[in-house]
């Protein structure tokens, strides 16, 4: 599956976001401003089947249906949190 490939890519953060969520945009802007290459998916723009699949995945990983979710190696960061991002990315 495409998502598995993305998550398996070493050292490349994965961002699960909503296209309308201002905090998701801030997280992406933060990564961009630090020139961090990452993969991302706007969950609300996926078709229904794919959306269900990703939502289930996010819920299993985080215990909630909240965005953004950033996966950096073994770290899972829920919400826009620059301190946690910096720590996980060793910035």
């Amino acid at each position, binding site marked *: 599956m495409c998502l598995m490939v993305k998550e398996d890519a070493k050292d490349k953060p994965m961002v699960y976001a909503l296209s309308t969520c201002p905090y998701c945009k801030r997280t992406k802007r933060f990564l961009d401003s630090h020139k961090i290459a990452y993969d991302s998916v706007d969950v*609300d723009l996926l078709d229904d089947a794919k959306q269900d699949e990703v939502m289930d995945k996010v819920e299993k990983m985080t215990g909630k249906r909240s965005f953004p979710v950033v996966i950096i190696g073994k770290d899972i960061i829920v919400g826009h949190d620059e301190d946690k991002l910096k720590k996980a990315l060793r910035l």
Partner: protein
Amino acid sequence: MSDQKPVRVYCPVCLQRFKFVEGWKEGDLVICPICGQKLRLEMTDQGWNGVRPEKGTEKEIRARADEFARIRGYKFNDMKEDIIEGLMGKNSLFGDFYCPCRMMHVGEYQCPCQPTRAGDVETNGKCYCGFFWRKDLGAIDPPPRP
């Protein structure tokens, strides 16, 4: 004791009925005291109904948010403009101003969403999205009523 039911007006945003004030007439513009939406009064077979005169516009959601904040005594912070942009995105993608921070696109999550109207701001200091803030935590007052 009168057995006459109080006359009420249906608000299509918060899906609640609020009290009709004596003297109001068809075509008047009124504010829903529950969600802050501006409505034009219309009499239908089902009773008084509120119609959204500026439905789906940025003007509508800004006025609603500001009015809701004034009614509740809430404030905003520097996320206000980003959240308005998110609400506009929800409207283009899903047809109405649903909470931009959630996946739910149903009436209950029309901004200000039901949990916010039920008191989340008092309990948590802010709404789910961080749009409305309790007075002691927010930084920006809503503008004065036009």
